[in-house]
């Protein structure tokens, strides 16, 4: 039996089945968990998938963070459980204070939908443990509000604690310090704007997402 990944689905989430497909292609099991559920069903890892949770009303992630399932995700994260927020999921995790900072609208005022080269900045996270620092991963991005920002103090902390997980090789959206993804102090919660689940099949032009979701499955497996 492989590890089980709970894939959180809010009204408006639209990447949950891509995550399920990618996890299963890597030998893991996946189950969709709806926003109004209070339990993660004993899952060994959580992915907060991308989309437009609650229509992005008010702000991306602002309504979603109050969903019953987020209490379970917060508890799971506090217990050291691996949690990854992808794209809109990253926005949800910042709104839920599981990760610092915020995602503002892209510099250049454009929605970005393209392949991006990500440079692994830390291999000490649940999403990059099987990668090497300096590895370049080709992973698609698809967002309008992916421009990571935070206070200078938070940025200094992220840098000092090696919590910047992946950086863009060529900054597409104006993110401070080219940040594409970060992790929490415990290194078990990771948020990133790019979509590793869309880079797990050769038909999609890249399989570089496998090392990320493979890392997550390894972290999940350690909890089975």
């Amino acid at each position: 039996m492989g590890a089980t990944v709970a894939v959180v689905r809010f009204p408006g989430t639209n990447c949950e089945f891509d995550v399920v497909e990618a996890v299963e292609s890597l030998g893991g099991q996946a189950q969709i968990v709806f926003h109004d559920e209070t339990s993660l069903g004993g899952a060994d890892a959580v992915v907060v998938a991308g989309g437009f949770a609650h229509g992005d009303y008010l702000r991306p992630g602002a309504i979603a963070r109050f969903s019953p399932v987020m209490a379970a995700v917060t508890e799971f994260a506090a217990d050291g459980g691996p949690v990854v927020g992808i794209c809109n999921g990253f926005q949800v995790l910042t709104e839920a204070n599981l990760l610092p900072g915020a995602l503002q609208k892209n510099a250049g005022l454009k929605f970005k939908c393209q392949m991006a080269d990500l440079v692994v900045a830390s291999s000490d996270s649940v999403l990059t443990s099987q990668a090497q620092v300096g590895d370049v991963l080709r992973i698609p991005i698809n967002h309008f509000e992916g421009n990571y920002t935070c206070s200078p103090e938070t940025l200094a902390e992220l840098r000092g604690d090696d919590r910047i997980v992946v950086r863009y090789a060529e900054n597409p959206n104006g993110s401070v310090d080219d940040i594409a993804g970060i992790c929490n102090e415990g290194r078990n919660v990771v948020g990133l704007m790019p979509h590793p689940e869309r880079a797990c099949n050769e038909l999609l032009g890249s399989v570089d997402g496998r090392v990320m979701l493979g890392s997550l499955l390894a972290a999940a497996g350690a909890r089975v």
Partner: protein
Amino acid sequence: MIFDVTVEVRLRPGIADPQGATIERALPALGFDGVQDVKVGKSIRFTIDAESETAAFAEVEDLCHRFLTNPVIEDSVVTIAAGASA
């Protein structure tokens, strides 16, 4: 007492405002050459039942901080007026 509340949510200085920038770029074509520094925010209106204006203000400030704004990127300006709205 019922108070009418208006919360204006503004992007903090330095935060990207693509809507404001796009509006500003369109203005010269319409002949509005003197309009500058366009900023787009949100106006959220509601009523609140509270014992006093001070109490209402405190509750709205808390609401702004915890939900209506993201303090990392947004500020809010709260206006409170006594009297139920129609």
